[in-house]
């Protein structure tokens, strides 16, 4: 049977790719700076940008945790990636679900270094914290300003990114047993 030309030129639309809508309300923020292992959050975000379509999830980089307050409204799931201290060895990483005692606020010294925990607590008290908040931390090595990424963190970064991807797909979700 002959078909009308418009059907040849404009076939039936493809089935919608449901994955493009999956992470619309998910915001991933890499916290960091251009120095040493403190770049880890930014680099992880850059790597995630290669694994997902634009804006799904929304990916951002921040210098300061307080910038989160500009971006979290309407977000259903907030994922933060940052270098940290307190784990066993450089390159080791883990995930914490907010709230967690490991993210105790401590002394909030000033406006420049409003710590992440204080920002999350502030958002919570204002009724603006997303319902699901996960913080991925990767242990930093001992470094100075202006250093490059350490070998340990550089080698671990792809595994961190894979773990975040798996968490986003709920293959291996972030729990406080992670």
């Amino acid at each position, binding site marked *: 049977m002959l078909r009308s030309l418009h059907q040849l030129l404009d076939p039936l639309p493809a089935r919608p790719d449901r994955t493009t809508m999956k992470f619309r309300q998910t915001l991933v923020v890499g916290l960091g700076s251009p120095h040493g292992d403190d770049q880890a959050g930014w680099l992880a975000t850059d790597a995630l940008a290669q694994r997902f379509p634009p804006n799904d999830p929304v990916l951002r980089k921040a210098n300061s945790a307080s*910038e989160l307050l*500009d971006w979290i409204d309407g977000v259903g799931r907030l994922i933060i990636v940052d270098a940290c201290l307190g784990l066993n060895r450089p390159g080791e990483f883990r995930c914490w679900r907010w709230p967690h005692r490991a993210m105790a606020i401590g002394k*909030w*010294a*000033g*406006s*420049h270094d409003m710590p992440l925990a*204080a920002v999350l607590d*502030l958002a919570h008290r204002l*009724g603006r914290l997303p319902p699901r908040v996960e913080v991925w931390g990767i242990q930093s090595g001992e470094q100075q300003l202006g250093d490059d990424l350490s070998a340990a963190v550089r080698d671990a970064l792809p595994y961190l990114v894979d773990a975040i991807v798996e968490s986003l797909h709920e293959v291996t979700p972030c729990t406080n047993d992670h």
Partner: protein
Amino acid sequence: MSGRRIKVQALTRVEGEGGLYIKLGPQDVEEVCLEIYEPPRLFEALLRGRPLEDVPDITARICGICPVAYQMSSVHALESALGVTVPPAIRQLRRLLYCGEWIESHTLHMYLLNAPDFLGFESGLAMAERYPDEVNRGLRMKKHGNQLLEVMGGRAIHPINVAVGGFFRLPRAEDLQRLVPDFEWGLQAAVETARWVAGFEFPDFCRDYQLVSLAHPEEYPMNEGCIATSDGESLAVGSFENEFEERQVPHSTALHAVRRHAQTPYLVGPLARVGLNVDQLSPTARRLAVEVGIAWPSRNPFQSIVARALEVVHAFEEALTILRDYQRPAHARVAYDYRDGRGCAATEAPRGLLYHRYDVTADGKIRLAKIVPPTSQNQAQIETDLRGWVPVALQDDDDAVARSCENLVRCYDPCISCSTHFLRVQIERP
């Protein structure tokens, strides 16, 4: 009064690391030391030998809350050394950039650092739970200030678009136009903020300040003008080092500043700026300055929060004017040739007058740099004020005295990181 010693180990809700030591004698306050132990950051030495084009971005790293101030003082000082004059359009864009910084710095300080003291809260977090609408208002105002910094400066923290001679890239008209609705909201929010803070209860504590700030015959001072004082002086910026002196003190890594001839402290910052320039505020800010019922100039440090609020009104209103009228200039920056020389400039950082001086070489390198931040200029005055405040605040409870002293220190919005080119409160009682 007994011979007590009161020490605050680490001041909270101030930027940077500092502490306070108070020694009380049998009859009076024997000693007050604002101890700054933030490590010296040695930026002046760091700049020597570097290309002058590196200076704005390097000095911006002195501070994450007031980077624009360092960039503005540095480019104006370098342009003075090179004999460069920027055209009016660039001048106006620099004021727009500064408006963004005043908004985000002042707003964060008012809402999260200073207002909790007046409302009886230990922290901005505790206050947020009782005053969520107000804190959300402040955070949104700060956000819009940051957005302006992003559009003008390339990013909100440590902007990257400021260049000697102008900017690396001019903003597009549509990017600035897009900010207008939020800045219209921001102006109204700033008015509500000014009315809110003006209603706080202020201790009756007036000081014999010499107020110091820039003054300009045609505008509220930001980047240009002479140095005015409440004694009626009008000083050329080039005479700064003849008139003001920095000196080291043993208990602080931050230098103290005094008037060179009288060896007396002085005050810079919003209280001084508003006090010396109230008639140059924007129309809405000027009306509010009358409405709030304070006789300007005020010499009560607790009323600094009202001065900050008026400046935020001014910043939103001036920014709106520039955003609405913006016509993209033909060129982003003025060309220049290197020459051996010296140049200086003063601009008004959120915390007060910020002075830079550079000696440059014929091949475009920095030979010498001098940076005098506002917080170090205020250190001596803060200590003097604390010496006057302690007898007022004194009670048997050392913690209460310490808190009261911290409240006063926070009124100056000290940026300790800036003031160390480096509030623990310790109270000793006999």
